[in-house]
């Protein structure tokens, strides 16, 4: 089986992290969380890494967490401890280099919460964004209830989080959920442009500050 998450560091110091489970729309399972944890630590500790870019293989960036694994945690106490000890999203928010998300297709649940920890989000025009957790009787738990209202106007964030309904790139651009939307054929070029800009000069981190 191919690796579920890939890490590649090019000679400019751009680390590309690819969600690589296209047959499941890159639903993020525990094994992928572990790989993200490992790769993000590597990005933090590797002196050559100057930027990180997230992308998804296949038709979508990510449809969210892998729901088939829900309810398999040993106990609430264990879940809490594991989340605090391996805080993937907290680690992401604390990385000292710019983080760019290349978004297309479904960016739902954790598939939106991961980009919300980034500084720049560039999307294909077909991208759809949602925090649909309440449809399953729970709430966003990869930081979304906190990062979304700190990224877009909080009333708009409340609408998305309470209704669980998706929005497209028009609303996403209006409220600053993404900075650019381009035809999918131009997405790689647009991401390259953003990376080039971030690598060539001073930048301000766009993510919510810890």
């Amino acid at each position, binding site marked *: 089986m191919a690796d579920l998450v890939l890490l590649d560091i090019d000679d400019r110091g751009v680390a590309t992290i690819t969600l690589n489970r296209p047959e499941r729309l890159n639903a993020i399972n525990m094994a992928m969380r572990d790989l993200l944890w490992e790769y993000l630590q590597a990005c933090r500790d590797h002196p050559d890494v100057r930027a990180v870019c997230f992308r998804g293989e296949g038709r979508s960036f990510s449809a969210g967490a892998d729901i088939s694994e829900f309810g398999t945690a040993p106990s609430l106490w264990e879940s*809490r401890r594991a989340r605090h000890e391996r805080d993937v999203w907290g680690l992401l928010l604390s990385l000292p280099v710019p983080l760019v998300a290349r978004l297309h297709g479904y960016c739902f649940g954790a598939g939106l919460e991961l980009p919300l920890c980034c500084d720049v989000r560039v999307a294909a025009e077909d991208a759809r964004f949602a925090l649909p957790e309440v449809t*399953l009787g729970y*709430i*966003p738990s990869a930081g979304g209830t906190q990062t979304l209202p700190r990224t877009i106007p*909080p009333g708009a964030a409340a609408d998305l989080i*309470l209704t*669980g309904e998706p929005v497209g790139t028009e609303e996403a651009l209006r409220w600053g959920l993404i900075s650019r939307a381009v035809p999918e054929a131009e997405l790689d070029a647009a991401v390259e442009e953003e990376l080039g800009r971030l690598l060539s000069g001073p930048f301000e981190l766009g993510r919510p500050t810890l």
Partner: protein
Amino acid sequence: MGAIGTLTLSGGISADAAVEALAGFAAGDARVVVVEAGADAGPGAWPGERVRWLWRDYPLPVVFAFEGRLEGAGAAFALGCDIRVCGEAAAMELDGESMDGLTAERARTLLGLEAGNAIPTRLTAGEALEAGLVSRVGPAGSAAEVARGAAEAVAARGPIATRLAKEAVWRGLDQPLEQALRFETDLTLLLQATKDRAEGVRAFLEKRPPDFTGE
């Protein structure tokens, strides 16, 4: 169906009567409330304590719908709600000068303004949408229907989840992010102990609509 409580702010309704109606919804079967600004006078006053009560202490998500010109107590009421929608001919008047501190603070939060920045006095529907002060705009006259659409979505979700989501969003926003993220984790774990969350996951995997009971 009792899942959506509806309150109309008109006919000389007093602020106390509005609070009483909202408390009744929360004590009953309602999972979400739609508040419609009436064509005539609403409550004469809606002070900052009540604005804060709506977003911070009232447990159910509230969707506010308006047409025409919304001002004064009606606008203050709207600021306290979770979701605002309007018709495209609507406008919101916010008199920052005469606003009390808590109401002005809420307006700044929703508009993303730093303390001390002037609150815009008038926003058309389009401007309010741009600013995210309202999140949905429909054709003139459709605000109540648009609000109902949003409320039906909320009512179909897990009722404990939507209450905790409201709490996570508004109470979390006042906390430093690191603390707020731990707050979210704890609310998440609280939900893991509910029947609704197990039902939500089961229904998803069985490809059927969930039957949430609020347990």
